[in-house]
């Protein structure tokens, strides 16, 4: 889910950036440092939307670098356990399928796929019900529930399920 939050960061700036454009340099350095990163606490920082406050700079001992505490608003994407969201399937194999929701990868194991769906290998591997009415393949849209998350240095990875009520395929690309 997307959130709009205020974060704070201490930015270090080299003296070459001081001068008339100090603020702009600080903001662009912030955006370069922070956008696209991911943390366990806040999830993916998708974009910085504004600067709330830049505090007074503190010159560090021994070097000419100055540290500025910057408060900024940003849009983050963080999945949490129990959340329902819609994702697009990217890969299907006999262990389950991978789906993507924004910058987050979600894996749905075959244990968490309804029992009446079987894996069919082939050019376009997929999970299909016994009567062929419902199919999960690449580019299918599925509604799933997140049941766990793991955070790496650069990305968040989730485990999901479609075995509950009202979960599963929304849109079959074969019929589109």
């Amino acid at each position, binding site marked *: *889910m*997307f*959130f*709009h*939050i*205020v*974060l*704070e*960061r*201490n930015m*270090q700036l080299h003296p070459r950036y001081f001068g008339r454009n100090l603020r702009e340099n600080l903001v*662009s350095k912030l*955006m*370069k*440092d*922070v*956008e*696209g*990163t*991911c*943390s*366990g*606490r*806040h999830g*993916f*920082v*998708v*974009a910085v*939307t504004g600067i709330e406050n830049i505090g007074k700079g503190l010159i560090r001992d021994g070097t000419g670098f100055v*540290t500025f505490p910057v408060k900024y608003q940003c*849009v983050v*994407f963080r999945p*949490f*356990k*129990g*959340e*329902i*969201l*819609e994702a*697009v399937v990217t890969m299907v194999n006999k262990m389950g399928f991978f789906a*993507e*929701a*924004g*910058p987050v990868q979600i894996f749905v194991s075959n*244990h*968490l796929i309804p029992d009446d769906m079987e894996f069919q290998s082939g050019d376009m591997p997929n999970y299909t019900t016994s009567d062929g009415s419902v199919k999960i393949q690449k580019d299918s849209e599925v*509604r799933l*529930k997140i*049941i*766990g*998350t*793991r*955070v790496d*240095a650069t990305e968040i990875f989730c*485990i999901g*399920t479609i*075995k*509950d*009520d*009202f979960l599963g395929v929304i849109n079959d690309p074969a019929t589109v």
Partner: protein
Amino acid sequence: MSEKGGKGASLSSKGGSLKGKDDSATKSVKGRKVQFSKEGAFESGISSSLTSLKSGGKGGKGDKVANGGKSSQSKDPHSSDRRIEQKLPENIKCLMDCEAADILQGIQEQMVMLSRDSTVKMPISFDKGLQYAKNNSKYRNPQSTRRVLEPLAKCGLTDSEICVIGNVCPETIDEVFALLPSLKERNVDRQVLKDSLSELAKLRQPM
């Protein structure tokens, strides 16, 4: 809620404190086989969520989820959901996909103007986030959607639950209760919920 430290975004304190770092510390403390973190959301207090999951309170929907070795995690969905919502600090605002799409679209348009600086490149997560928000944005007008969902806030639904309803756009009340089991325990006015759902359906963009 602050993010201190010059480089590197996450609180990567190697001291193993439970605050903020979800994975390795909790893994060793609990000795769990599962890899996946306990959802402690934005604050410390992961220890409290761990102890409650350990005591194995059973959530209603926990039964239906297949337990392929990850059972203890799904056993208590209600209280962990509730805990997440309680722990969201006040300055966090949940965004529905349509609102996020608006904001990110605006930023992208600004980026086009700023692209004279060739070193400014939008990261992949921005493109993916924008595409996802646009694809999932079901409503033409986020403000009217918010207005329709306002009565639900008065009924006692949390911001994140309202956002989930907005994102998913359920058709019936049964669907709402199935997807958000924590609502069943609270006395939510079904009529208000029903009215909001029908209003939402009217606002929904034709696919």
